């Protein structure tokens, strides 16, 4: 990257996933000078994660949906890089954003891996955050055992490494995302002992109207049915994993049938033995902390996640800050791309989206909302917890400690819970435990806004990624390093 030019960028894009690629391409093709910051080492985000191009330069996209869209976006992305309008900084994590007098965004950067960073700061007039999300988790007995992973984490492992993390898998939680995970495990040669879906598929029936607005989804459903039949994968609905069993790592899971509220049906428990990897996915948590730190307004989406408010131009409530993809609500890669195009164009020149694009986005939002309603987090999920089940993995805070702080000390929100029990104070800064801690704390109050307030306090992290003290202390002495 040229260090001679000192002018700030027109547009900075955080994330090079489906949303970020589309935003970057749309802005660059409108003549904006764009910088893209992404924690990963190559473009694609979570959905189009692929083997390192150093070992597989021309991936064929096996096991990927929408690979043609990726190839198109990627060639336009690469073209914009080669003409010098787009600067791409991989392996780079944005950890803090400030604003200068003129309203310009100042992005502080740290290496995602390793210890050196070439460019510690970039400035831009407009910002598009496409930071995506990570798997949402619910604690249960045994979830801290090695061999228990996020369902998306298994998917990412297979896509990035081309190998499997184990041999015999159980995938559990809720939502259609469990299907591609199981399918990819089977395609890579792993045995999927069972997929446990807590919802009942009849939950879909009231929402078929919304689903039929997105025909591609029905097609994918048929595709998975065929894959499941071929690999003899048991798809158990209204079923949850009640505990993971093992000494030093997972070796079995206990499953049980549940009713619509998530309460265990007595006598339905059974043990699935000889399992070495258990993948859990209860939807996704959008990464909105950077947008929240800039003051973006939030709302609770249909899946119970805290997401940022965006208008039809993908503009947040903060002037100059645009949002696309999971940060505006979990809705899948097709929606993320559509929003990314709109956000990039708005950021570049204030362009209004075409009516057809706006309609497409609306259709996908309706589908996503129907999907979330059909796959809720079971209301009674916490009935599985024992006193010593860990709620906060990082700080090893138990369920008994959390309920005591709530019921005896009155910690009915995540912030108070944190000060009493240290939940959310570990390395992950509450990314993993934040949702569960918010739910459990809110059970101690009748205040309807308690959950929103708790999730907001979880999203208010001083820094978006843990830094070494050295890094923080060098901050003030850093030369403003423009590009």
């Amino acid at each position: 990257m040229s260090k001679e030019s000192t002018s700030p960028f027109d547009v900075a894009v955080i994330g090079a996933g489906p949303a970020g690629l589309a935003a970057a391409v749309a802005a660059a093709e409108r003549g904006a000078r764009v910088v893209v910051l992404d924690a990963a080492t190559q473009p694609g985000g979570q959905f189009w994660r692929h083997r390192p191009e150093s070992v597989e330069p021309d991936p064929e996209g096996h096991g990927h949906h929408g690979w043609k869209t990726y190839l198109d976006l990627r060639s336009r992305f690469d073209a914009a890089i080669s003409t010098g309008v787009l600067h791409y900084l991989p392996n780079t994590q944005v950890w803090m954003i400030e604003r200068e007098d003129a309203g310009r965004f100042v992005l502080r950067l740290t290496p995602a891996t390793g210890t050196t960073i070439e460019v510690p700061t970039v400035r831009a007039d407009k910002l598009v955050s496409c930071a995506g999300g990570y798997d949402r988790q619910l604690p249960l007995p045994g979830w801290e055992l090695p061999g228990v992973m996020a369902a998306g984490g298994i998917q990412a492992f297979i896509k990035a490494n081309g190998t499997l993390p184990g041999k015999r898998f159980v995938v559990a939680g809720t939502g259609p995302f469990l299907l591609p995970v199981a399918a990819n495990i089977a395609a890579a040669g792993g045995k999927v002992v069972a997929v446990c879906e807590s919802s009942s598929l009849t939950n879909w029936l009231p929402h078929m109207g919304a689903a039929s607005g997105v025909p591609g989804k029905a097609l994918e459903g048929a595709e998975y049915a065929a894959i499941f039949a071929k690999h003899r994968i048991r798809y158990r609905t209204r079923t949850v994993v009640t505990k993971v069993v093992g000494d030093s790592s997972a070796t079995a899971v206990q499953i049980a049938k549940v009713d619509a509220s998530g309460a265990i049906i007595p006598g339905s428990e059974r043990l699935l033995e000889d399992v070495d990897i258990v993948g859990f996915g209860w939807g996704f948590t959008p990464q909105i902390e950077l947008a929240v730190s800039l003051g973006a307004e939030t709302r609770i989406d249909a899946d119970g996640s805290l997401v940022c408010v965006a208008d039809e131009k993908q503009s947040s409530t903060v002037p100059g800050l645009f949002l696309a993809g999971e940060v505006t609500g979990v809705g899948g890669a097709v929606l993320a791309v559509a929003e990314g195009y709109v956000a990039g164009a708005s950021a570049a020149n204030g362009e209004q989206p075409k009516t057809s694009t706006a309609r497409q986005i609306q259709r996908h939002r309706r589908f996503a909302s129907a999907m979330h309603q059909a796959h809720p987090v079971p209301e009674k999920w916490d009935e599985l917890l024992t006193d010593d089940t860990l709620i906060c993995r990082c700080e090893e805070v138990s369920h008994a400690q959390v309920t005591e702080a709530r019921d005896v000390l009155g910690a009915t929100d995540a912030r108070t819970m944190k000060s009493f029990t240290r939940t959310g104070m570990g390395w992950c800064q509450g990314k993993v435990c934040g949702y569960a801690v918010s739910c459990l704390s809110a059970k101690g109050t009748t205040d309807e806004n308690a959950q929103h307030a708790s999730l907001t306090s979880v999203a208010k992290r001083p820094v978006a990624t843990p830094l070494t003290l050295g890094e923080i202390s060098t901050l003030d002495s850093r030369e403003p390093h423009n590009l």
Partner: protein
Amino acid sequence: MSNPPQRITVNLNATPVQAEAGQSVGAVLMGQGIKAWRTTRNEGKPRGLFCGIGACYDCLITIDGEPNQRACMVQASDSMNIEGDFSA
């Protein structure tokens, strides 16, 4: 188009181990049947990969002398020194 896999050698607590190029440190360890490589501060419990994408920090490990690196994020490279509590 896959190139034939390129082999690299990494050192796991000073023991040389062959691995395929282009894998994360976490994948190399899991490939060796190692599922945990650190123990927790309070209870001394084993931990390895969890989120798989850099969010949870369960997979922290020492790489080339640098502690607290995320095994799921770092790509293994030839003659890399990886140190952890593999008996965890």
